[in-house]
Structure formats: C-alpha cells, structure tokens
C-alpha cells in the first residue's frame, strides 16, 4: 500500500504545523468565530497524531479515541456558538477583547 511508505515523522510534522496554525489563530485573532475555528484546528492536530500512531502500532485504540474527540469537538462547537451568540447579544460584537468585565 501507498500509505505504508509514508513514515510517521511526516504525520507528526503535519500535526505540528496544523497545531501551530491553530495556536497562531488563538493568539492573534479577535473574532470569536475565528477563535472557535482555531480551536478546531488544535483539536484536529491532536487527532492526526492519534490516528498516525494508531496506524503505526497497528492498534485501533487511538482511532477510537479520535471518534470521542470528534464528538467532544462537536459539543464544544455547540456550546461555543451559544457563547458567541450571547456575546453578540451583550456587546453587539463578537470581538473577544471587548468582553473583559468578568474579572476582579
């Protein structure tokens, strides 16, 4: 198979790249929707890792875990969008730097 020829390091590099993009998004974006997408990237970077290692060791546990992570991600998106709606209702915007009142 073609896949057998691709070594595990490639997957790790891909995963690290996707993770860094997600991290960059989280650190630089002000739009909450972009935030949510960046978080998705972070989660999927981890998923790539899990699947790659599962394949590498010939063990399906990692792939099973990924299914759970995707379900979790779906739930997270639902909650996240709910928060964004409330944010919009209260601040007329989805800029995360506006909502700074919940502190000391």
């Amino acid at each position, binding site marked *: 198979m073609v896949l057998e020829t691709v070594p595990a390091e490639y997957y790790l590099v891909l995963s690290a790249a996707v993770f860094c993009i997600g991290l960059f998004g989280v*650190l*630089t974006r002000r739009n909450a929707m972009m*935030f949510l997408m960046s978080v998705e990237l972070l989660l999927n970077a981890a998923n790539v890792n899990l699947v790659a290692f599962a394949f590498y060791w010939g063990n399906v546990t990692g792939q099973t875990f990924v299914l759970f992570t995707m379900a979790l991600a779906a739930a997270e998106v639902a909650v996240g969008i709910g928060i964004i709606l409330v944010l919009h209702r209260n601040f007329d915007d989805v800029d*995360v*730097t506006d*909502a*700074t009142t919940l502190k000391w």
Partner: protein
Amino acid sequence: MALIYELTPAIVFLPLASFALALFFGQWMPKKGAVAGILATLGTLGLSLVTLGWLVLTGEPHDATWYTLVDADGAVNLTFGILIDQLSAAMLVIVSLIAFLVHVFSLGYMNDEGEPGLPRYYAGLGLFTASMLAFVIADNLFMAFVFFELVGLCSYLLIGHWFGEDAPPSAAKKAFLVTRFGDYFFLVGVVGVLVTFGTAGFAGSEGFPALAEQALTGETSVNTFGLSTEGWFSVLGLLVLGGALGKSAQFPFHTWLPDAMEGPTPVSALIHAATMVAAGVYLIARIYGFYALLPTVLGVIAFVGGFTALFAATMAVVKNEIKQVLAYSTISQYGYMMLALGAGGYVAAFFHLTTHAIFKALLFLGAGSVIIAMHHEEDMWEMGGLKDEMRTTYLTFLAGSLALAGIFPFSGFWSKDEVLFETLVHALGGSPLLFGAYAMALSAVFLTGFYTIRMVLLSFHGEPRSDTAEDPHGVGWNVKFPLVVLGALAVVAGGINLLPVEKLLGGSLHLAFLEGYLGQDIGLLTHGEHYSELLHDYAGYRSEYIGNEVTTILLGAGLSLGLALLGAVSAYGLYRGAAPARHTEKLGGVQTLLMHNYYQDEYQVWLAEGLTVRLSAAADTFDQGVIDGTVNAVSSVSLFSGGRIRRIQSGVVTNYAALIVLSLLALLVVFAILGGWL
C-alpha cells in the same frame, strides 16, 4: 445500712421539692409557698434529729458515694456522696432548725406585710436550704464546692429580692462578686487537691487528709510540683481557705456582708448570720485533718480570725442601723471561730458556731420583729422605748444580746470563753505568736459588750424618739414563736459543752457533751481526738497553763467576762438615759473612719477601677497593638502583593492563552535543560 441512712437524701430533697413547688405553683399555693416550705423544713428537721440521735446512740457513721458524675475509670472520679459523721449530723440539725424557724418567721415578715414576689422568695429559701444541707453532707471537696457555689447563688437571688429598688441589686452583685473572688481560689484548690491526691474525699484512710498525713511522714509520695511536701500542702490549704474567707466574710473579703443587709431580714437571719456564712468555717472544720498538719496555715487562719474579730467589732460600735450593727457583729463572731480553728480549738470553733447560729438568728429575727413594728425603719435613733410595747421581742432580744456579749451564763459566754481558752493555752504551750491573735480577740470582747448593749439600749430603752416608736405595729404568733424557741436555746445552749464546769468539779461529772461527742472515734478519722493528735504531732500545739488548768480557766474566763461586763457597763452608762446623746460623734475623725468602714469599700473599688481596669487597658493595648498588629502586618503584605499581582488578570482571553503558551514553553525549556536534551 441503717434505714435512717437510706432516708438521708430526703433531707436534701424535701427543701428541693418545696423550691420546685413554690417556683412553679407558688401563686396558687396556700400562703404562696410558705406552707410547703415550712412542712419541708420541718420534715428535714425531724430527719436530721433522728440522724443525730441514731449516730449518738449507735455510733454508726455513714459514708457512701451516691452518684458518680464523671467516672474516669481509675483516674480522678467526680462523685456526689453522703458523709454523716458527728460534725455533719450536728450541722444538719442546726441548719434545718434555723431554716424551719425562718420559714415560720417569714409568714409574719413577708406574707403579713403583703410583700410582692412571695413564690420567688420561698423558692429561693427552699433552694438555699437544699443546697446548704447538701453542702453539709458532702463527702468530698468537689461536691462541697458545687454546693458552696449554689448557696452563693441563692444568697445573690435573695439579697436582690426587692430588685426594683436601687440598693438591693447592687448589694446582691457585690456579695456575689466578692464571694466569687474567694471561690476562685477555692476552685483552684479543689483542682490542686484532686491532682495531688487523686481523690477529694474527706473521711477515712482513703480521704485526702489521711493521704496528706502519709505523704508528710514519708510513707507515700505525691507530686508536689517542685515544692516541699509541706510547702505544697500549705499552698493547697491557703487556696481552699480563700473560699472559706470569702463565704465567712473574713478580712479582706468582709465587705459584702454589711451590704447584704439590703435583703429581707429573715434572709439575713438564715443566710447571712446562721448558715451560709458558717459554710466557710464548716469547710475548714470539715477538712481539719488536713489543716492540722500545716502550722503555717493554722497561724494565718488564727491571725485573720483574731484580726477580723477586732476589726469588725470597732465598726459595729458606731453604726446607727440595727441590722448594720448585727452584720458587723456577725463578721466579728466568725472571726472568733476562725481564730479557734487556727488556734487548734476544733471543738471550740464548732461550739461557737452552734451557739452563734442560735443567738445571731435570734437577734436578726428580733431585729426583723422591730423592723415590722417600726414600719421598716431601721435607724436605731428613730426607735427607743420599745421594751414595754414589745415584751416578747424585748426579752428574747435581750437574751440573744447577752449571749452575744458573752455574759455569764448565756450560751455565748461558754463558747467564746472556750475559744479564748484554747488560744491562750496553745499560746502558752510554745506558740507565742498566738498571743497576738489572743490579744486582738480579747479586745474585741470589750467592744462586743459595748456595741451590743448600745444596740439594746437605743432600740428598746429610753423615750420613743419618733411617732412610729410611740405606737409600734404589733407582731403575730409567727414572729413570736421562732423568737421564743431561739430565745430559750440562746440561754441554755451553752449547756452542751460545760467544759470549764467539768474541769472545776475535777472531772467527776461528765458535762462536756459536745467535746465527747465530737471527739469519739467512729472510724472515719474525722473525730476530735484524732485532730488533737495531729495538732500535737505536726503543728506542735501543746497546752501549758498558768498555775494549773483550773486557775487558767478561771483566769481566762474572768478576764473575758470582766472585759465584756466592762464594755456592757460603759455602754449602759453612756446610753441609759431617757434621751441618750450620740456619744460616738465625739470620736471625731475616728468616727468618720469607722462609719466609712476603714475605706475598705473605696479601697476595693480602687482595686477594681484604678488597678484592674488600668492593667486590663494595658493588656488590651498590647493585644491590639502587638499581637493583632503582627497578624495584621502579615495579612497586609498579602493584601498589597495580591493587589499588584491581580493586574495580570486583564479579562482578555487572548492574553490568557498567550500566558499559558509561554508558560508551557518555559516549562519545556526547563525540562529540556534538566533532562539534558540541549
């Protein structure tokens, strides 16, 4: 166990029942609870007499634990128990007799005068009687302490009976606080005794006096906290003595008793003359087996007693209110009892306690009768000429006064003479310090004669000095009956211990009944003979006589009788006329000093306000400044740094994310360096 000893708890529970009945149902009861109280105390008196009779006839004592409060299983047990020996059996009769007569008298003094709060009053009397009797039969120091406190509480409640007026509540508080101050030492003493001996029992070879004796002879050893055995025992003795001095109103704790006269007069008769004030003396007599081992403490007791006898008598000379004179004479007479205990006269002390309980209760009830007649006027200068109007009161009051003054052959003469005799022979027998106490007590005899006769003459003789004295209010049977009973006893009570007469007759006739009764060994180590041996062996009290015993008796009795008569005659000379002058005013500055009670009240107020309050204020400053200051300084550092550090909480979610990432990176770098990857 004899049937009578199974009934002993009833001696306490009868008055307790009358307390509960009067408290909850008094409003609906005959005479507002008085009848219940009279019946209860009558029952108690009957039981006490039977107990005493049983003890005299069979010589069988009773010492048993009745209720275990805390069972520490081998360590210190706290128990309530009953000890019936010669001392407690005799004291039971005295207390219940006076309590009974005072209940009867209260019918005339409180009910007939239409006083308010009668159920509360009778409840107080019932509770007092029950606590006092329980104190008397206590078989250990812990139980004695509990009921010692309870009689103090009853005293507080009864002094403050008329709490609507200004003076009684204040007097009640003062009495409570001053006696409580002494009791504080007592409490520490009780704990000390329990810790040292592991028991606080009074009687038998298991009791702490017997254990103390063994420790002193070196048979056993006890923890003395680094002091010598005798030194530590003396400390314990002095601590317990603190409670006794407070209750028996001895210098310097005497100031509460004159103020306690704000209470109803029957209360003064029962509590502040005959019984509760005797609790202190009784306590010392109860553990005399312990005190007899400690010559230093005995010396302190003798001196405090002798000094108080003289000190209080001087103040009684100038007082104008009949109850005030009696109050100071009470303090003075308890001084004699303390002197007797300190000077090794155990029997003499109890003898004087007995006669004093009778004649002082009589005098207070007589004064109560006069106060009824005078429509609650207590100033003797408003009285005069009452002797023809109130024949019974006058005659009984006179009998009590002559007993108080120590005039032959009234009861007070015999007992006071025995106190002085014991002091004298022990002073002669190698304890010369007792001469000082003896001299003070002897001077007090003169003053006692003087103020007593002055009081009688001012109240009953001469011309009436006010309208109420012209036409006094009559008194009923319920006033006269207790007076007559006590009056008769005041005349003859000396007969229970005619020791001098026995000695004069050469011992052919047994007349010293009390001495024989208290001295007899019934196996509890609480008898007089045992105490005499202890005094001889440990305190070094030996008897010496001037010439022989008979000449010493005659000399001592002659001296005290002569001084008493001298005092009485000088008072008679000064105050006998139809309209006597206020002779004490001629004393000038001395009179002012005496009227102000040697400024003892001011001194104690100064102790409280000038010294204690200032010390407390300094302690408060230290607490607020140094201790709280340290704590506040520590917390202010936290507050300040927290106030600065919280600024990193910007509320911007991006910053948090950046912080987490940076921290993670830093952690990675640290791991990398520590792990040696770099």
